[in-house]
């Protein structure tokens, strides 16, 4: 079994000329086909007034994963890192990074995707940010 940190960012589109994004990170233990244990989950919102760059995304992911008390390889969807070839995020991130591959990793990304999306919807609703 392996320790991973699954991350996903919701809100990669403009709202009133701003980007209101929410990143979710989950520390998990996975086998090849199953999530064996969910150890901790953290979320981090980010509001920026310009188009997010790759470095903004990397920083947001690093900040969210940094809140977790557990170590592990960061696993993300290709689209979150602008479909860059693996070697690009590998050299930018300060910890081990990989794109989702196995059934368990894909399920983990699905989990954090639901968390980031529903958190963003909740915040947008509570903070009365019009879409």
């Amino acid at each position: 079994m392996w320790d991973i940190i699954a991350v996903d960012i919701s809100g990669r589109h403009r709202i009133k000329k701003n980007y209101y994004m929410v990143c979710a990170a989950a520390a998990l233990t996975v086998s090849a086909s199953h999530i064996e244990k969910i150890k901790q989950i953290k979320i981090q919102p980010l509001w920026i007034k310009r188009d997010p760059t790759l470095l903004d995304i990397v920083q947001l992911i690093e900040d969210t994963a940094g809140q977790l008390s557990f170590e592990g390889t960061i696993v993300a969807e290709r689209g979150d890192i602008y479909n860059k070839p693996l070697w690009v995020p590998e050299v930018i991130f300060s910890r081990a990074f990989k794109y989702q591959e196995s059934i368990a990793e894909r399920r983990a990304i699905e989990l954090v995707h639901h968390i980031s999306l529903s958190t963003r919807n909740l915040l947008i609703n509570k903070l009365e940010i019009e879409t």
Partner: protein
Amino acid sequence: MTIPDENKIRSESKVILVKRSNPNSDPENEAILYQELHELARAAGYLSVGKLTQTRFQDTRYQLGKVKIEELAELVRSTDTEKVIFYNRLSTKQLFNISKICQCHIIDKFELIFEIFVKRAITHRSKLQLELARLKYEVSRAKAVVSLLKKDERQGFMGLGDYENSYEQDLKKRISRIENELESAEKDDESLRTFRHRKGFSVISLAGYTNAGKSTLFNAIVNESVEVKDMLFTTLVPMTRALDLGGRKALLTDTVGFIQDLPHWLVDAFKSTLNEIYLSDLILLVVDVSEKPAIILQKLSTSHDTLWDKIQGVPVITVLNKTDLLEKFELDNIMKQIEYMAPNPVFVAAKEKTGITALKAEIIRHLPAWSFSSFTLPNSEEGMSILSWLYEEGIVHKVEYGKWITVDYEARIEIINKAKAVINANEN
């Protein structure tokens, strides 16, 4: 640009293979993908007489650079080739522009896969599925193709205006007709699956990347002789055979192989084939372990991608095939690199029929649990009839005949419940 000399003189369906790679892409990976295109062309019965590659970002008009396309046209003329196959997906505009310069038939990898499927389709159903896929592919291009063709023509009497619409409408009508026909066939499949489950069969599917050795393994497990070839997409129609696993009845299905970047319209075409996998009780994911670890990982990733959100927690056994081609230390080394992608690994050499017993044991371990129960039946004609039915549906561990017949029995929970209901009804 390369032209294999020995191939120049042969006149059978000659093709030139073309691939564009993005800058910064992994050269080793690109070589693997090109090799896959070569294998696909071979599977479709083509002879590759030339190769053209370019590293650049996509040109919207020609896919490659225009000079490279002119070089391709020259290669087509010098080798007297009838067809050019692009690895990269071509837009209608690119297809039109390249055909104009090269003056030959241009297709992309997806149309090539489609051609293979068409050549191998045997059943009426698979032919319908392919017809549907072709029509759906064509309808998206129909308008653009007609517009490109009539670009220089004037509107008016005998113009293409009406034709443009009627052609699209005609395609849509045919799509709707075939969809209806396939829908009723799918309902038949659903009831067949339910029937199999009700009869106590566990359904097991062989899945995996194309040419991983699924059919060879199928033959090794069920002692059959399904067609086996060292070629991509040998199996297109699912083949199902019964299997006895220590008294438990199972159905093993050999299915079509997966391939990287298969377009959705083609995946849809084989939805019912893939449903065989998705609705199984257990999936045997077959992997050719004799390949390089990077290739194995890539193929496993494609397989996991195809399966992950459809199988709903169904257990997966990774069958690492062709172990006879490797030494023990090589196998250990590969295993270390791929274990995070290989749930429940089992080593087999399907050709040599080694490891099949261990695989069967692993299959039994992962099949849905059966329940144990004891029944008391009247020693009468009705009782004997129920006992005979119990023998058909599950495993009778012990049976004692006296005034009453006592049976120790193991079967699916549905069968146990049904048996209890039948016995109670009989007593009353």
